[in-house]
């Protein structure tokens, strides 16, 4: 698998083995290539390795074997400081629970990644305000997380993830704690950003309704990508080697590549 210019992240034969004695193979030779500006969903049953894969892409964990290329550079064996720098500059994270710092206001939370990147307070505050306005929270800049609803907090978390204008935004079950209306709002927000600034989004989700709105679905089972589906017109086209079982991975409007 050769790297292409438009690939933002390339995983080559990635494996992760946990445990001493009794080994658990969380990822088993995963190879995948994600282009800049793609909107990708990773789906699969619990314990299939989705979050492990996301942690690898997010440089939070190191692989037991294989390689991770970020913008063509092998980062799989990067030093902890270099990984921290890349997480700050190239990656943005949104989790199931917003994980905002409770003592800080919305704008202060959004400023955090910029202050870590040594940007000035004035600059960080200005950008924080801009981002909060972009996610529809321009009137809640100085509210603390306990004064905001779940959906609003998640929007602050999205703004925080975008603070340093990262190449990739990673979401781990980011709508898992939200009601349908808030989930829809968050999805629309991400989609808009994806289209407007060509930002790459990689989301792990159990929510097939959300997954079906993305451009590409990767289905992972027992640490292996067993199916890849790409959006085509109103439906999805599954790759030849798809092993989805009887439920077709619960994806609606699916067809097969010939």
């Amino acid at each position, binding site marked *: 698998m050769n790297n292409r210019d438009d690939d933002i992240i390339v995983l080559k034969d990635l494996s992760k083995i946990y445990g001493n004695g009794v080994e658990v193979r969380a990822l088993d030779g995963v190879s995948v290539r994600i282009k800049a500006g793609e909107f990708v969903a990773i789906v699969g049953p619990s314990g299939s390795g989705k979050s492990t894969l996301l942690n690898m892409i*997010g440089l*939070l964990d190191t692989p037991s074997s294989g390689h991770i290329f970020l913008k063509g550079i092998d980062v799989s064996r990067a030093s*902890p*400081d270099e990984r*921290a*720098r*890349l*997480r*700050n*500059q190239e990656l943005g*994270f949104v989790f199931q629970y917003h*994980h905002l*710092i409770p003592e800080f206001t919305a704008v202060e939370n959004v400023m*955090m*990644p910029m202050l*870590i*990147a040594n940007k000035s307070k004035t600059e960080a505050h200005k950008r924080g305000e801009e981002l909060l306005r972009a996610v529809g929270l321009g009137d809640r800049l100085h509210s603390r997380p306990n004064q905001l609803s779940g959906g609003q907090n998640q929007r602050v978390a999205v703004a*925080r993830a975008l603070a340093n204008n990262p190449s990739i935004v990673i979401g781990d079950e980011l709508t898992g704690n939200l009601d349908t209306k808030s989930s829809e709002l968050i999805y629309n927000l991400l989609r808009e950003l994806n289209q407007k600034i060509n930002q790459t989004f990689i989301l792990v989700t159990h929510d097939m309704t959300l997954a079906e709105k993305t451009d590409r679905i990767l289905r992972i089972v027992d640490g292996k990508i067993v199916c890849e589906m790409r959006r085509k017109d109103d439906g999805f086209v599954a790759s030849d080697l798809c092993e989805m079982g009887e439920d077709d991975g619960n994806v609606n409007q699916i067809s097969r590549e010939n």
Partner: protein
Amino acid sequence: MGNQGVTNILFYMFILLISAFVIANTTIMVVSKRRREIGILMTMGSKRRSILMISLLENMLIIALAFALSLCFVSGLYPAYSAAQLDPVEAIGSE
């Protein structure tokens, strides 16, 4: 150095040791309470060195506060002791 001196030093060392345990215990509690926040800071790109510095700085602040409080206590100790030793007759008669 007499026996009294050695006893005093041992006693102070014991107090210092207990203080160190209390500070360590407080730090462990703070770190465990903030585990998730530390994790988030790391996902946002904080380096391990920065996390160490934040934790140490917080410790130093606690120590400085404790030191200031104990200094206030010590400086108030003599006047308080003197007040308690007053002879009521002398005190009433004095201008």
